[in-house]
């Protein structure tokens, strides 16, 4: 018997059009801006912590002197940890910025939809929080320490002993950005996260041999999404935006850009000289210069497609450059210029010393580092 083929129209006929209109009418509210990958979950958690801390400070009228810090820990299995830590689930936590968080240890899901306060004495300092996390066997968990007296967050991706990043919580309405404002933000992200081996992303597997970590592009896009949204105080930037031509890395919504720009499409590429081979933690293979030209060329063409797909006014190709030599790719720049794509190459130094040396050379020459915005 011939099987009946179901057309999409049949499925469409089965749904309630009134409810569909309601769902679509939400303007996408509630659709997470970050994917549910490991990388996305990390960035989503930092974003949730940032927005909570920001709302808390707004509620209090700014930093509160003498306040003890608190910590939010990303839980892998929150219901089990609630039992293990005798933690107290807090209903509507996200909606209650007046909650007195000072000195407490919280475990939370990546979006703060489930938050629980661990049963532990008040922590009076970041050091006391570290001790508490060790006691509770949470030392290796990703966490964010909120310092209400300073209006700051300390982000710890790999738990205690890992790299940390100090973030100042910012307030106030966001002015619509010119493209140069967006470029400044991305540059600032690069300075904090990827420019040197100790950047928050810890981008190198073997810095001395110029081998970046695996999945670096995904990590960069997730954390850049977190970073931009935190600076913009809202969910205006999304990542892994699917279009008919593939996956756009970063989309900046038109409502934070000046009207004549509209949406911005940011395609991200990592340029490498070496690639971890996966055979062992120290093995790697080399990549030719031409392969990276091809890689970046593809990035330009992707940016062109995505710009059209999302109706963006501008398209950028951001190359996070982990190659050995800090050198422009003339072919890529020429193609990008012809296609009206903005190319920015952000060089990743394999040591702080190499970064300092490059800065000194640039200062003497009266120039800027690659991709730097003054």
């Amino acid at each position: 018997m011939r099987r009946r083929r179901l057309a999409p129209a049949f499925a469409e006929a089965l749904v309630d059009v009134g409810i569909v209109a309601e769902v679509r009418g939400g303007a996408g509210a509630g659709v997470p801006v970050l994917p549910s990958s490991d990388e996305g979950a990390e960035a989503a958690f930092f974003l949730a912590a940032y927005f909570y801390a920001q709302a808390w400070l707004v509620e209090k009228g700014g930093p509160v002197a003498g306040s003890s810090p608190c910590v939010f820990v990303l839980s892998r299995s929150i219901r089990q940890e609630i039992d293990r830590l005798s933690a107290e689930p807090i209903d509507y936590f996200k909606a209650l910025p007046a909650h007195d968080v000072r000195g407490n240890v919280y475990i939370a899901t990546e979006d703060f939809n489930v938050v629980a306060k661990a049963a532990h004495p008040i922590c009076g300092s970041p050091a006391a929080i570290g001790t508490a996390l060790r006691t509770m066997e949470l030392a290796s968990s990703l966490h964010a320490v909120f310092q209400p007296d300073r209006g700051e967050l300390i982000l710890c991706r790999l738990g205690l002993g890992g790299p940390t990043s100090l973030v100042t919580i910012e307030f106030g309405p966001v002015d619509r950005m010119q493209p140069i404002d967006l470029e400044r933000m991305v540059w600032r992200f690069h300075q904090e996260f990827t420019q040197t081996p100790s950047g928050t992303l810890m981008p190198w597997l073997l810095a001395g041999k110029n081998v970046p970590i695996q999945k670096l592009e995904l990590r960069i896009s997730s954390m850049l999404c977190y970073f931009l949204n935190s600076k913009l105080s809202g969910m205006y930037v999304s990542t892994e935006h699917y279009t008919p031509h593939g996956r756009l890395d970063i989309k900046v919504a038109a409502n934070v850009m000046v009207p004549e720009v509209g949406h911005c499409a940011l395609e991200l590429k990592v340029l490498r000289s070496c690639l971890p081979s996966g055979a062992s933690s120290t093995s790697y293979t080399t990549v030719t210069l031409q392969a990276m030209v091809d890689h970046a060329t593809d990035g330009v063409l992707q940016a062109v497609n995505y710009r059209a797909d999302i109706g963006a006014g501008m398209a950028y190709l951001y190359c996070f450059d982990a190659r050995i030599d800090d050198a422009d790719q003339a072919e890529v720049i020429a193609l990008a210029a012809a296609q009206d794509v903005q190319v920015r190459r952000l060089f990743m130094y394999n040591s702080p010393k190499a970064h300092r040396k490059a800065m000194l050379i640039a200062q003497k020459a009266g120039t800027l580092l690659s991709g730097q915005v003054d």
Partner: protein
Amino acid sequence: MWLLLLLDAAERAGVTPLSVGRLHRLVYLANAMAPVYDILTPDGYILKYKRGPFFPAVQWDIDRLGAQGLARVANLQRAEDELGWWFDADYTLTKRGMGAVDAAKGLTEIAAKGSFLREVVKAFAAMELPEDERDAALLGDVAYAKADDQAPIDFRTASENLTSLAATAIAGKGYEGHQVSRRAEVHLYFRYLERLWARQSGARNSA
């Protein structure tokens, strides 16, 4: 692995322990929505059952995971109600199970499936309904709701999969007039089920 990844997703989203009913309903919707993420549907044939979706093979697998120490089974009990004899249990992922998931995620294909399943469970966790109504709301799935009792629901191929087709239709051209992301398709479909349940509940209460 599908089941372990789903349990992991449920742990992360804070919707554990999974009852038998919730487990099978989440498996059903995850299987049905897999084409949205270009993932092959692992088990795409089911008979509409009076208690909601139930996959005998999945039940076998979850019990086996329990025996292997990868999942924890608690509160196993038998009960009889107006529909006859039945059983229930609560499932969580053990530390060993989490370790197995972490080890497997090194494989690109597994990581992709894991991300998809986390998205499905996250969308479920985000439904703004009382805890006991969320599971019931899942039965509003277009394919399940339209099928007759005991009738087969076949979604082995994407072209016959009403759920994924409906998810695409609901997302439409998108809230911004452009192509919507597959992440949005998943979340908007669950939002649709949430609103559908709320409307039907309102109708039931006013009747």
